[in-house]
Each structure stands twice: as C-alpha cells, then as structure tokens.
C-alpha cells in the first residue's frame, strides 16, 4: 500500500512537471508570435543601462561624464541641481547646488530657477545608479525651455568618492 501511495505521488508530480512545461512553452510561443506581429511590439532585449535610458525627447543622451561635470563645477560654468528631497539635500550636497525635487517643480520653479537664463548649463543629480529623480528633473526642465541640461548619474556618491567639494545645510 505504501509503495502504491508513492507511485501515485510520483505520477502526480510527473504530470505537474510536463503540464507546467507545456504551459510555459505555449506562453512563450504565444508571447513571441504576438509581439512579432503586433504594431507596438518591443525588441526582445533592450539596453536598460542609465546611459541608454537617460535620453532627451529627441533621443540624444543627457549623461555628463564625471570629469566634464568636475571641470564645469570648478570653472563655475554649471548650475548643479540636487533632485533629492530637502532632508537629504541638507545632510550634504555638491557645493553650490540648489535643491529642486522634480515632484515639487510646480511650486518651487520660480524661487529656484527664476534668475537662471535658459541656455545656462544645468547638471542634475541624485544618488544611486538607478535613481531616476535627476532624469525626471532634467526632462521637466527641458519641457520648460532649458536647452543645456545634463544628468550626472549616481551624482552624490560619485562626487563624494572623487573627493570633490561638498557642503551641508540649506542653499
């Protein structure tokens, strides 16, 4: 009797396994064929790196290399915008940066950027490889007519690790 119970169990799990495999194959086939035939299909693989994702509406990359950002900072050519929340900004930010979280741009725009000409080089940053706040801010600024906006990926970490000038408190 015990061995019979064992047999039933084995056949159940075998059935589960081959049925699962068939279902997976059916979904894979249906998904690939449908994606191929439809008008808004997507490529099977895509580049999800920050460099590839952070592009302007017209498709050119907004990413600024750290060295270029450092030079612009040292020469006083760029306005740095910290896209993180006010708490994080006050705990430490790139020297001379102003704070503008993208979700607060409606209320703070005039106060933070009222005196900035639209062709001024603006470098947005936040913290972390995958932080999109800086990119969201850059897009919002370009929508408002700024023509020279770049994104420093993982800016706060990169800046500190390079030993570049930082400061604390409100701007």
């Amino acid at each position: 009797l015990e061995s019979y119970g064992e047999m039933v169990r084995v056949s159940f799990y075998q059935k589960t396994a081959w049925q699962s495999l068939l279902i997976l194959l059916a979904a894979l086939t249906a998904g690939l064929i449908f994606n191929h035939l439809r008008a808004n299909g997507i490529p099977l693989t895509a580049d999800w790196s920050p460099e590839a994702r952070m592009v302007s509406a017209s498709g050119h990359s907004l990413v600024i290399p750290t060295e270029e950002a450092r030079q612009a900072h040292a020469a006083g050519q760029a306005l740095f915008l910290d896209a993180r929340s006010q708490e994080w900004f006050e705990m430490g930010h790139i020297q001379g940066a102003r704070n503008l979280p993208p979700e607060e741009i409606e209320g703070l725009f005039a106060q933070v950027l009222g005196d900035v000409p639209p062709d001024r080089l603006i470098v947005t940053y936040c913290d972390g490889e995958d932080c999109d706040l800086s990119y969201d801010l850059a897009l919002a600024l370009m929508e408002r007519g700024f023509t020279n906006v770049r994104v420093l990926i993982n800016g706060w970490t990169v800046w500190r690790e390079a030993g570049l000038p930082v400061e604390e408190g409100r701007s």
Partner: protein
Amino acid sequence: MTRFRIIYLLLRLALGGIFIYASLDKILHPAAFAEIIFNYQILPGALINLTAIVLPWLELVIGLLLVFGIFMPGAAALTGLLLTVFWASLLFNLARGLDIDCGCFSTQSAGSASMAWHFIRDSVFLIMGLALFILVLKRDKLSSSKEVA
C-alpha cells in the same frame, strides 16, 4: 466532499479570473510593463523585455486553464509558483524601502495605493494559490485510489 468541491471551484474561478484580468492590460502595453519590471530592480537588463513579452501570456494561459479546469496539476503549480515570485518581489522591495508601482493589474501608475496594501493583497492571493494546489493534489490522490477500487 461537496464542500471541498465548492471551495475548489471557487478558488479556480477566482484565481483564474484574477490572472486573466491581470494579463490583459500588460498584453496591451508591453513597453509600459517592461518599465515596471525595470522599476522592480530585480531582473538583469537583458531579461526585462523578454519577461514583459512572455509573462502576461503565461498569466492569460494559466487563467484560462484555471477557469476551465484543464491541465490542473500544471496550472495550479504554476499559479503557486508565480504568486510566490510576485509576493517575494514585493516583499524584497518593501524590505529595502524601494517605492515602486506594483504593476500588478495595470501598467498605469497606481498613485496613492501603498506598497503595504499591495503586499497584503498578494499574501491573500498566495494563500489562495497554495490552497488550490493542495486541493488539486488531494483530488488527484482520491481519483487515483478510486480507479483502483
């Protein structure tokens, strides 16, 4: 036995309906769904688009099989597996404090709905899925022993 049968039927229809409903918006908007998978920050970039293409169809196929009661061992096992993966992904991001749109049913941003609420809801689905698999296993044993008798 009858009570079991009713619970079994209800679980099948509920989970099947949930899976079919969840698949439709994702099938319609693959690019938006890929963006949501990316936001989970779990899969490597190379697998994101393929997952966005295939996963909604897997949900649809499983949902249909559950509703019609076909291929139940396989469909119920995959239901449990998928719900476990969804649940663990949400838990993982809840634990590391990443606020993401869950993309559970829609590729639109959920807005104010909280991660915690998504997690509780997913927990209920997971319990339903595991219960269904146990019932399928029990039914299989019963029907096998009947054949012999």
